[in-house]
């Protein structure tokens, strides 16, 4: 989309080009229209032929210092001036500066009769005079086919037209000739026969009540050109063509991580959030909080001082701001600081290409770091599925090229397989968050998980989240025997678990007490036994000493008796064994 002067000079080596200065057109034509040769622009009524031709002249006069002549066969100079004033072209001023001449040629068949031979030398003279007057290098003939309506002798006319195009080439002017699209032919009067260097076809198609403008280079001698149909749009800045086919995969990658605006989600995404310049898709069923998640991301980006562009196809700016305030996000402040720009429009308001073009344009103008498209599903309504797919690829490539982080939301309908995105764009997104409803016990709760996230170790957990007045709050999800528990079930499960825990604790305490008591009882018994034993021991000791003293007494008595009886004194053996203990 941006002008590439180096590319132009490169191309100029092969074939001299006259840059059109029209966004995108110079890229697909490899530098512009053929210099010094005529180019045919054909298309049906209202396709934008006159405007394309006019912009070629005006840009030539203002940007490339190539004055031009506009020979109008349809509209007067005043009408043309007025028509393009809304595009910011001041033809009067250019005429004053001798950069542009508008020559209106009026042909009124009713006042013309023909007798005999003639030629169109008058037209040549007029054109030559106009070219000389400003030193024109560019010429537009719009629409020269009107001559066929004014003059009867087609034979002469054709011969003269052939001469005219030859003459234009000889003059060395880059000419643009516009012509009406004919039935089964490019032009109504077969002008393509004479202008064979470059033919551009403009098309204005209405599919499903939505109109789309497209441009195609039918032929371009000596130049490798894009052969696709390129969507273009006409807006307040004039004509712009979108050469954005897939831009390829050569974009730079960033290692920078940016927060999602929800700390716990960052944790789930490897702890740091998204990669800058990647594409994040959030899909989910209706009312799962996709927009809220987007708003958090916006808020986080604006907080970092980055510009954000929010394309909303469902809600107006005011509605979004109000709704996000209810979850504690003040987006209005960013909007006021010009960090955040909203673009709200109904998806069906334009065709797909127009949307793409608008997104491209605004991204280029605003140069944001973050772009939100909410939701992409709406765009699919604006075109068919395949178109939408190509468009999204173009868009994502374009944003990646610019290192813009894209955040897309997508509404999945209940009936479909949950992980099936409408346009199968999963392969082109880098991080895919999935939001779903969990319906249980008569209530719906929201859960989020990371389906994929390239280049980071992300969580595999399903997390319930709440949208509170403080924003997005991620919780753990309870997985019970009947599945995942959320909401009230989770709360009751939590309560149950809490009760059980208390009970378990009490049980443990009770057991502990029991044990203590048992131990105490046991110890008491041990003490009693020990006491008893001590007593016994004491008794035993006492009786033993008594025995000894008794033996002593007996021995003494015996000794005394034997002494008295004068018996033999055999110590210790005097007593029989059996009587010892008695």
């Amino acid at each position: 989309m941006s002008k590439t002067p180096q590319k132009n000079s490169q191309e100029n080596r092969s074939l001299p080009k006259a840059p059109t200065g029209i966004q995108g057109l110079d890229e697909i034509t490899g530098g512009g229209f053929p210099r010094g040769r005529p180019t045919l622009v054909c298309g049906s009524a209202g396709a934008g032929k006159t405007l394309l031709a006019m912009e070629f002249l005006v840009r030539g006069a203002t940007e490339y210092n190539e004055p031009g002549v506009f020979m109008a066969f349809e509209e007067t100079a005043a009408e043309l001036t007025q028509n393009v004033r809304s595009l910011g072209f001041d033809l009067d001023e250019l005429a004053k500066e001798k950069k542009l001449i508008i020559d209106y040629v009026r042909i009124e068949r009713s006042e013309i009769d023909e007798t005999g031979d003639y030629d169109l030398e008058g037209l040549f003279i007029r054109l030559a005079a106009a070219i000389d007057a400003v030193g024109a290098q560019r010429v537009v003939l719009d629409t020269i086919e009107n001559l066929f309506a004014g003059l009867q002798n087609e034979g002469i006319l054709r011969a003269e037209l052939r001469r005219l195009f030859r003459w234009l080439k000889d003059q060395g002017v880059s000419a643009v000739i516009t012509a009406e699209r004919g039935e089964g032919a490019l032009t109504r009067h077969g002008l393509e026969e004479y202008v064979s260097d470059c033919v551009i076809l403009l098309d204005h198609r209405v599919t499903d009540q939505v109109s789309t403008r497209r441009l195609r280079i039918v032929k371009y001698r000596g130049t490798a050109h894009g052969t696709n149909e390129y969507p273009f749009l006409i807006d307040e800045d004039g004509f712009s063509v979108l050469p954005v086919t897939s831009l390829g995969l050569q974009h730079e990658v960033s290692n920078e991580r940016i927060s999602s605006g929800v700390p716990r989600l960052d944790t789930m995404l490897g702890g740091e959030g998204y990669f800058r310049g990647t594409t994040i898709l959030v899909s989910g069923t209706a009312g799962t909080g996709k927009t809220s998640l987007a708003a958090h991301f916006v808020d986080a980006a604006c907080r970092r001082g980055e510009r954000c562009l929010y394309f909303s196809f469902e809600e107006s700016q005011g509605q979004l701001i109000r709704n996000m305030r209810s979850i504690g996000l003040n987006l209005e402040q960013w909007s006021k600081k010009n960090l955040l720009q909203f673009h709200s429009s109904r998806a069906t308001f334009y065709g797909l290409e127009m949307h793409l073009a608008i997104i491209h344009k605004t991204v280029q103008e605003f140069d944001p770091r973050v772009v939100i498209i909410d939701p992409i599903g709406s765009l699919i309504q604006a075109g068919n599925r395949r178109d939408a797919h190509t468009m999204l690829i173009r868009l994502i490539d374009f944003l990646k090229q610019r290192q813009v982080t894209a955040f897309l939301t997508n509404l999945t309908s209940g009936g479909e397989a949950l992980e099936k995105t409408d346009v199968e764009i999963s392969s082109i997104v880098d991080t895919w968050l999935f939001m779903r409803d969990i319906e249980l016990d008569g209530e719906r709760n929201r859960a989020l998980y990371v389906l994929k996230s390239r280049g980071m170790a992300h969580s595999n957990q399903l997390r319930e989240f709440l949208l509170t007045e403080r924003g997005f709050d991620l919780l753990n999800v309870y997985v019970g025997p009947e599945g995942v528990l959320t909401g009230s079930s989770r709360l009751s499960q939590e309560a149950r678990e809490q009760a059980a825990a208390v009970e378990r604790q009490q049980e443990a305490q009770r057991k502990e007490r029991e044990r203590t008591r048992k131990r105490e009882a046991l110890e008491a018994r041990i003490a009693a036994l020990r006491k008893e034993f001590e007593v016994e021991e004491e008794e035993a000791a006492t009786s033993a000493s008594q025995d000894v003293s008794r033996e002593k007494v007996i021995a003494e008595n015996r000794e005394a008796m034997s002494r008295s009886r004068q018996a033999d004194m055999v110590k210790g053996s005097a007593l029989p064994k059996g009587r010892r203990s008695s």
Partner: protein
Amino acid sequence: MKKAGDQVQPLSLQEIAEKNEPTDEQVWELRLYVAGQTPRSLAAFANLKKICEEHLAGRYNIEVVDLVKHPQLAAGDQILAIPTLVRKLPQPLRKIVGDLRDTERALVGLQLRPATPEK
């Protein structure tokens, strides 16, 4: 370009017809646009002269404009084809392109003869 119906008062068809009918007293102002002295231009001039002498003797002026010399004049009468004869007066303006070799058609074009069926 002057329009035939510039009047504020609506005229009846009869009145319009009378008004536009070239009268015998009127002087005809004719302008022939050519581009250089080409055979075709010369033929056109000769043919015109002949017609005028036959039908408008003594009450016509012919102005020959050479666009090669005065290219800026081409825009004024919206001249594309060469040669072009422009009847400036009497009104309304008429243009006849070509070398006027078909006298009958030229007369019809100049409204010197009503366009009658000649089959």
